[in-house]
């Protein structure tokens, strides 16, 4: 149990997908202008990343490895992620059309989120078991959501600050996210005994 907790903690904070691996920077800048949008995007990404990791592990273990089709891995995973997003969209629409109205806007954007593909490929390279893969994916997605929410909160405050004209807009946002990355580097010094 301890190793699973450490795995999730490591994926969420120490090797944070945005600030440690520098993946998924587009949604980090694009949907963090409002806190509610960041929460919606974070949760949708968590769902898609976890289901993609599950589907990716299954296809890789049962199809690509036994038939020696490793060279098709990247394109297969892209297809899996696109299918997962489409599946999620259909399910949310079926579960509740009203939920689809509220949350549907974020789903197509996840198809082009490199963090989802990056995590799926990392899991295969690490040869994890299925439970470790899913926990790692959930941990990574929680770290992704955490940074989106923190950054959205900071940007909501930045919007009402009197920032020098030269730094207004994206420049000050990039400076803030770099300071956030420095803060997250502090987690890499932590050890478990």
């Amino acid at each position: 149990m301890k190793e699973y907790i450490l795995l999730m903690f490591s994926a969420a904070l120490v090797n944070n997908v945005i600030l440690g691996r520098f993946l998924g920077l587009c949604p980090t800048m694009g949907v963090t202008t409002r806190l509610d949008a960041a929460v919606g995007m974070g949760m949708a990404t968590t769902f898609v990343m976890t289901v993609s990791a599950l589907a990716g592990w299954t296809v890789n273990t049962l199809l690509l490895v036994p038939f020696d089709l490793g060279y098709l891995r990247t394109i297969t995973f892209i297809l899996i992620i696109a299918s997962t997003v489409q599946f999620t969209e259909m399910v949310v629409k079926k579960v509740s059309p009203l939920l689809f109205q509220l949350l549907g806007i974020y789903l197509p954007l996840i198809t082009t989120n490199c963090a989802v593909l990056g995590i799926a490929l990392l899991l295969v390279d690490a040869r994890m078991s299925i439970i470790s893969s899913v926990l790692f994916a959930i941990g990574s997605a929680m770290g992704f959501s955490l940074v989106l929410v923190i950054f959205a909160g900071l940007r909501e405050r930045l919007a009402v600050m009197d920032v020098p004209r030269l730094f207004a807009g994206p420049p000050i946002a990039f400076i803030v996210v770099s300071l956030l990355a420095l803060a997250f580097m502090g987690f890499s010094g932590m050890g478990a005994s």
Partner: protein
Amino acid sequence: MDNFADSTADFSAPTMVEGIAQVVKIDGRTAWLVPEQGSSCGSCASASACGSKGIGTTASRLDNRRFRIDNDVNLAVGERVVFGIRDHVLLKASITAYVIPLATLLLAGVLAQWQFGSDLVTLGAMIAGLVIGLGISRMEAGRLHNKGDLVPQFLRRARPGETCSS
């Protein structure tokens, strides 16, 4: 020190998330609306692939996002209105749609791994957990819908030229 904001500035989030929609149909005392997109959406680099806009056709997915409100203020087709959704609704909707299925998926997977220790059994349990979770989500969404928690509310008629960002 002039560059620093007043320390008494109000950072609290607005209580409603507002959006602009156009009335496309009047059906008795019900008005059907289609939400408008922000001006930056169409010019985004991913616009051609983005589901919020559609693949270059007018029959876009916005039509799928059509919603209805009670027409108590005599709205007419073509009018633009400002509607609002309570700020906690998005969080509640996200939890209903995503967190419940994920929680059941994870719970089923952990239990199966603990009991059987086999990857294939765990895979089957996770898929079953996901399906069960989606069923629970559907029931919860129905409950929220019946309570009226997810329904957008009419706030006012939009001013000429008013956009989401103005």
